């Protein structure tokens, strides 16, 4: 009986990843999302955003942030693929969730969306700081912009900002241009200059500053101009993606439906860019876009198909790799002109751009350098917004064998001739010496 039980458990643990429709390297899009809220009213006030996620097949699990029963993992297995923190005011998470738990969740390759707000709590700020962005330390500060605010009949203090300084990246924001400005009302943050993984997606205008709108400004604001980031994304080295914004209301139904007119601009947009912006960026965060995989790394000598165990110097070889991009439902061929391969031993000896056949196959050919040693084929592909590809394949390169050198060198004919004439002379001399009288 005990044996059956062990087999059953083993079977379940093997089948479990296939049974539950969840994240895997083969289908990198997240499925199960935990949404932590301050109040269930957000579920209704931000329903358009949540509905757009649900309609794309995400399984949203709404919980209060201080719910004592929430947990990210159980028995060492993560219960969710992504986490949405729509709880700017939470002082302490309930259950087993804490700062370290959230960070190890991200460290294990899961995705995170953080929306803060004015008076965001310390724990939310800490999570953001760990991701490489620093919210304005002044808790009452908001982003104020007196030149590119959204014109509003009821909004007079210019904290409702019409942001249109987007990052120029089709993979993050979709190929369709966001025409209408994005409404933003909340706190700004700055990026840690030492962190190269964090990107500003929506920047404030040069005239913006972060301060308390109600009190007089006596010291220079800590954040000003386009150094203020309104929305940032992080792509960690393990390809976990994080979205950080200082405004939870930018996801709200009200902002989604609201029209927008930027101050000083005559065009009034019927609908703000918030819906398009949040939908597109959530596609990126949840790996529906910009997730690459490389398969079928092959190399061989020109004219052959078998992969050799080693190359000789000066061989001509062909290298090919197939790269695909996840589209949310299937792997589509990835087409780009900047994938490069390195033939590398301590430093690249050859670095060549691969040409592609528009169907995902990238290939090139080159001559093995005349330096022998243990080389690597390396593809280190990093592109703004895409997951990074890092492939390496080791291959030794040997010098010529003794009999592979050139045998009859014309320049050496005098030497050969001298030796052979010497030998002929010796032969004749042997007769002369022995028999001559």
């Amino acid at each position, binding site marked *: 009986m005990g044996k059956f039980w062990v087999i059953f458990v083993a079977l379940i643990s093997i089948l479990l990843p296939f049974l539950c429709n969840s994240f895997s390297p083969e289908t990198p899009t997240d499925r199960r999302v935990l949404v932590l809220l*301050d*109040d269930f*009213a957000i579920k*209704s006030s931000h329903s*358009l955003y949540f509905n757009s996620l649900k309609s794309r097949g995400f399984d949203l699990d709404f919980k209060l942030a*201080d719910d004592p029963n929430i947990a990210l993992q159980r028995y060492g297995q993560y219960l969710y693929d992504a986490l949405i923190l729509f709880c700017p*005011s939470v002082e302490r998470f309930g259950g087993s969730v804490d700062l370290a738990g959230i960070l190890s969740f991200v460290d294990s390759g899961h995705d995170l969306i953080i929306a803060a707000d*004015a008076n965001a709590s310390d724990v939310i700020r800490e999570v953001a700081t760990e991701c490489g962005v620093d919210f304005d330390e002044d808790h009452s500060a908001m982003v*104020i912009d*007196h*030149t590119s605010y959204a014109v509003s*009949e*009821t909004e*007079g*203090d*210019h904290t*409702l900002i019409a942001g249109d300084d987007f*990052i*120029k990246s089709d993979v993050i924001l979709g190929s369709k241009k966001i025409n209408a400005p994005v409404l933003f009302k909340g706190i700004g943050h700055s*990026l840690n*200059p*030492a962190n190269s993984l964090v990107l*500003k997606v929506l920047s404030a205008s040069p*005239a913006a*500053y972060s301060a308390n*709108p109600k009190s*007089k*400004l006596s010291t220079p*604001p800590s954040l*000003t*101009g386009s*150094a203020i980031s309104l929305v940032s994304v992080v792509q960690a080295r393990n390809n976990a993606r994080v979205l950080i914004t200082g405004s939870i209301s930018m996801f709200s*139904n*009200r902002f989604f*439906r609201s029209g927008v007119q930027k101050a000083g601009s005559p065009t009034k947009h019927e609908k703000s860019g918030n819906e398009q912006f949040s939908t597109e960026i959530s596609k990126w965060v949840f790996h529906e876009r910009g997730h690459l995989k490389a398969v079928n790394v092959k190399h061989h000598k020109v004219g052959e198909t078998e992969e050799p165990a080693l190359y000789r110097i*000066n061989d001509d070889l062909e290298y090919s790799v197939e790269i695909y991009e996840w589209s949310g439902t299937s792997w589509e061929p990835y087409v780009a002109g900047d994938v*490069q391969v390195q033939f590398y031993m301590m430093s690249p*000896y*050859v*670095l060549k751009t691969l040409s592609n056949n528009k169907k995902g196959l990238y290939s090139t050919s080159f*001559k093995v350098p*005349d330096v022998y040693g243990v080389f690597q084929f390396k593809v280190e592909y*990093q*592109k*703004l917004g895409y997951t990074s590809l890092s492939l390496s394949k080791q291959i030794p390169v040997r010098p010529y064998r003794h009999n592979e050198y050139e045998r009859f060198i*014309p320049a*050496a*004919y*005098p030497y050969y*001739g001298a030796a052979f*004439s*010497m030998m002929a*002379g010796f*032969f004749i001399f042997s*007769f*002369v010496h*022995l*028999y*001559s*009288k």
Partner: protein
Amino acid sequence: MARSLAGFLVFSLFVSICGAASLFQPISDSHRSAALELFTPDHGSFKSLEETYEALRTFEVLGIEKKPDVTASACRSISETLGSPSSTPKDLFYALKANSIAKCRINEKTSEGIITKLNAAVGGANSLLDFYYSVGGLVLIKDQTSRADVHLADTEGVFRSVKAFSQSDGRWRYSSNNPESSAFAAGIALETLAGIISLASSEIDQSLINTLKNDISKLFDSIEKYDDGSLYFDDKLVDGREYQGPLSTTSSVVRGLTAFAAVTAGSLNLPGDKILGLAKFFLGIEAPGDAKDFFNQIDSLACLENNRVSIPLILSLPSSVLSLTKKDSLKVRVNTVLGSNAPPLTVKLVGAYSSGSKDTSLVETQDLKFEAGTGVHILNNLPKTIDVGSYTFVFEIVLHESEHEKIYVTGSQTKVPIFVTGLIKIENAEIVLDNDLGNVEAQKKLDLAGQNAVSLSANHLQKLRLSFQLTTPRGHAFKPHQALLKLRHESKIEHIFVVGNPGKKFEIVLDFLQLVDKFFYLSGRYDIELAVGDAVMENSLLQAIGHVELDLPEPPEKAPRPPAQPVDPYSRYGPKAEIEHIFRAPDKRPPKELSLAFLGLTILPLLGFLVGLLRLGVNLKNFPTKAAPALFGILFHVGIGAVLLLYVFFWLKLDLFQTLKLLGFLGVFLVFVGHRILSHLAGTSSKLKSA
């Protein structure tokens, strides 16, 4: 507590989105479009009759004309439910509710059956919800079939058994064995009791009704309040199963209260402010994104719109940002919660307070002029005392007819935050470079509204002074929130200074000697930018003034290093330059002809040797004449030739091992034959000598 706090935070979020701490807008067209988005039938019908009712009711209240046509499918499922013998009172209740709007025909026989069934259900009911559905169903069928004979058999008994669920604090329990009381249940109970009263064949005991009125006022004692004056009911979250959230709870109470007020005579003695507070709560949440919440909001507002207690009137402003320069007039609208017109009334502006000082009013009390065409109360010219700035205006509503005061509730005073904006005049802007003795070295006038391209150069002993003056449209000095001077070095390091105003003038003096440390001793070009902005300044600006070329001293040993600047993300990625391996160049070789020529030269000594031999007259006379030595001699020379030929083959194709092997055999052979021939030759020569 934590919950209500969280709820408050969310609520304050909505309020802050509204932009005004106590400005509520009545239901408008945005709600109508939201309703059409939320209630979209799936293949011509809604999922359940409850949902159908909610959708129809919302469309009815909002007066939406272009609603999706679901009447046919709704009627089909209503008659199915009503005709089915297995329908529970709950199903019947929602079917009848949906029918109250869909207005399908119910035949006499069916309604007869339903009445008996519901009457039996009332008799057998033992929880609040049982009573609610069965009594509610009876009320609905009475209205729909206009039959006078629908009434409860033992009205008072039923009344008392429902009343038995009430608690001392005005809340109710769901059933007798559930100790938890809730305000949500109170609303349901009130609605049920209102139904019982309307179904009563005889007058209900007045004392029972009076205790119920008492319960209601107790329930209102537990009402909760937000900072902006809106009121709501909320239940404590105990196990979360029956917890409904503030919106559903408040909505249930409002529905029960208005139903109860509609069937009882006499007043409920509820202060009108509480009703107004409830109305504000529903208006403050804007358009919820959840169909159920949306229905609760709209239905409750509809209940408040025509209730017998007091009808709230909402004061709203189409625009709370007024421009002095454009001479905007102050417009105020007074509507009921659903946006219909209010009775004749006058709106008075009783005070205006600057957001800085709260104590003295800047205006005298004055009436706003009513424009009948647009239904707007207007104050055409803002008083002279109102300059640009943010203010709190206080309005009061005075109803014209005194009997309206019993029907409507307006709230004593409405405070509305108002922003008065205007174009600010910028004058006397100049930038001055002083030397260390205080003498002016360079002075440039600036036109901050236009383009400036100042080009200065300074060293660390000089001072840069920038000054300008701001005047409001009314001629007062103006202090903007944002008056920042930005110096940006070539290396993108920015330095920001707040421009202060010691007097009437805004002035900043940059003493470079004091600032060298802050500037990290970085000499070079600094771009100067000035940002002047305020919420009420219509011409907020960010101006590039020009640049100053600074010549600062060399940094001392321990000077702070400038901070790292973020790397441009676009340049961080992207393809690298290609690398081609440079192969070792092949050795230089002489041309082939030269090699062949030298090959010819190497043959020459051999030829010379041969010629020399011929000239010497060599002969082979010493060759043995006897057969055996001659054979050995021939074999010896053949052996030598073979060894030499082996060398040729070694050169052409053989490797060292093959060569050595063959050489070994040949060597042995050569030693043998060589010994024979050489000893023979030695023998003949010694014979010759001795002879």
